[in-house]
């Protein structure tokens, strides 16, 4: 569905993505993990051409998104929902108006239908009582959840999550995890999640890719990922206390 083919991305003299290739298949939850500054969010932005590769190609089905422009790019982007790191809500609109924005701008739905759909997605993310608040009146975590509501309100085929649980309390983080899983299992939404949170990655991901130094050093399902013998992966797992708990449980 989404395929990275020898993608290289340089900013000036700094190489952020160094010849990476992988494929995300339809209907899976694909998680990208790795330390800060390894290019996880940069890779995510390449999927919708918010950034373009220095060389290589990013494919969405048979469309080369990395070269698409105009209508072709717009049509490709319409298949996506994108949860940005900070939520990226428009500051002068209430939470409900932010969530309703894509429906008002892109669809012919009536105001009642829009209001119903907005209430539905706000309830999914636990913000049913906060629709009339401005982004500045809610916490960072709530802004992120509102951003998620806006990302899924148009029922996209693919949702890109950029650090969906960072800065959230553990309970809310697991709620978001369950929501990602729910969207995937009930609606078949393909999800690509960029996260530091390995607990989240291991519980929701069908496959986990680890980026390090601009390269993909491991791609595996969770049960194999934690058995990885790659020193960087082991270090990453140990840093989040995965080894002593999870690995022991599955007799690694």
């Amino acid at each position, binding site marked *: 569905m989404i395929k990275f083919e020898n993608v290289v991305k340089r900013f000036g003299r700094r190489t952020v993505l160094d010849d990476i290739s992988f494929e995300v298949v339809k209907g899976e939850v694909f998680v990208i993990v790795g330390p800060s500054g390894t290019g996880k969010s940069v890779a995510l932005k390449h999927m919708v051409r918010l*950034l373009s590769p220095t060389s290589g190609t990013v494919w969405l089905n048979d469309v080369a998104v990395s070269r698409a422009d105009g209508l072709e790019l*717009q049509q490709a982007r319409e298949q996506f929902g994108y949860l940005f790191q900070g939520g990226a*809500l428009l500051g002068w609109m209430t939470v409900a108006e932010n969530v309703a924005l*894509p429906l008002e701008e892109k669809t012919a739905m009536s105001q009642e239908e829009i209001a119903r759909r907005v209430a539905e997605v706000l309830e999914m993310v636990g913000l049913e009582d906060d629709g009339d608040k401005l982004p500045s009146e809610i916490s960072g975590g709530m802004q992120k959840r509102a951003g998620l509501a806006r990302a899924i309100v148009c029922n996209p085929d693919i949702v890109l999550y950029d650090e969906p649980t960072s800065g959230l309390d553990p309970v809310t983080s697991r709620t978001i995890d369950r929501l990602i899983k729910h969207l995937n299992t009930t609606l078949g939404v393909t999800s690509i999640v960029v996260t530091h949170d390995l607990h989240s990655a291991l519980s929701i991901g069908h496959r986990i890719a680890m980026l390090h130094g601009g390269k993909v050093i491991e791609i595996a399902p969770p049960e194999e990922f934690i058995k990885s013998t790659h020193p960087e992966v082991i270090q990453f797992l140990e840093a989040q206390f995965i080894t002593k708990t999870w690995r022991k449980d599955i007799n690694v």
Partner: protein
Amino acid sequence: MITRDPIDVPYTTNPLLSLWYTVAVGAQDVGRATLLIVQSLAGVRRLFSKRGRPAFVEQLYTVGIASLPLITIVALFIGMILALQTGLELRRFNQEIFIGSAVMVSMLREMGPLMSALILTACVGSAMAAQIGTMTVNDEIAALEMLAIDPVRFLMTPRIWALVIMTPLLSFYTCVVGVIGGGVVGYTQLNIQWVQYFDIAIDFARERDLYVGLLKAVIYGIVIAGVACYEGFTAAQGAVGVGRATRSSVVKSFLLILILGYFVTRGFYNG
């Protein structure tokens, strides 16, 4: 497509190559800004739509009504300064009665559009650049693009049209207030009667001066909104980038207003 990779200028120690890169990036900037201006002006239909009208009305208020107090004070004092300076010189030849003409012609031809444009650049243009710049660095512009909402029509069209409409109106208002300011100085310090002052001022007012002044104001309005929005859309690197975009927007608008003002004057008053 607004969200793009940052422009990558290759590092070089060769001064000629460095100059070439600067010129190339500058040309690219001018091309992209011009394209944005054309696209935003072409989106005029959005202003009459149910969704676009409230944003347009809000911009008209921000540009026009909210700037009125400052423009009134500046215009009044500009008129007073003009009257005083010219009056003191003309008095040496017993011709101070003609300050009305000097103030009227200066305000209509240059000072009206110029002063209103400079005030709008400082008050409105800088705020536009800061707001759009903050939206850019917070990924809000990218989010709009991901929602298949065109940021140019959504954000820039109401702003540029508000300035295109309001700058000439404010320019005319500046002229009127400036001429009144000149009259106050004439009456209080140069012993010129109100009626005499206004008779001479109106005698010297030419329709052509008014139209050229209004044309300048329209051009200035496009420049202020175009530069501010472009600088905002291309802001990068967090708060520092927003500050840089705001400063750059004010500096570039000031320079363009002066340079374009000269060429329009040259075009219409070339002897």
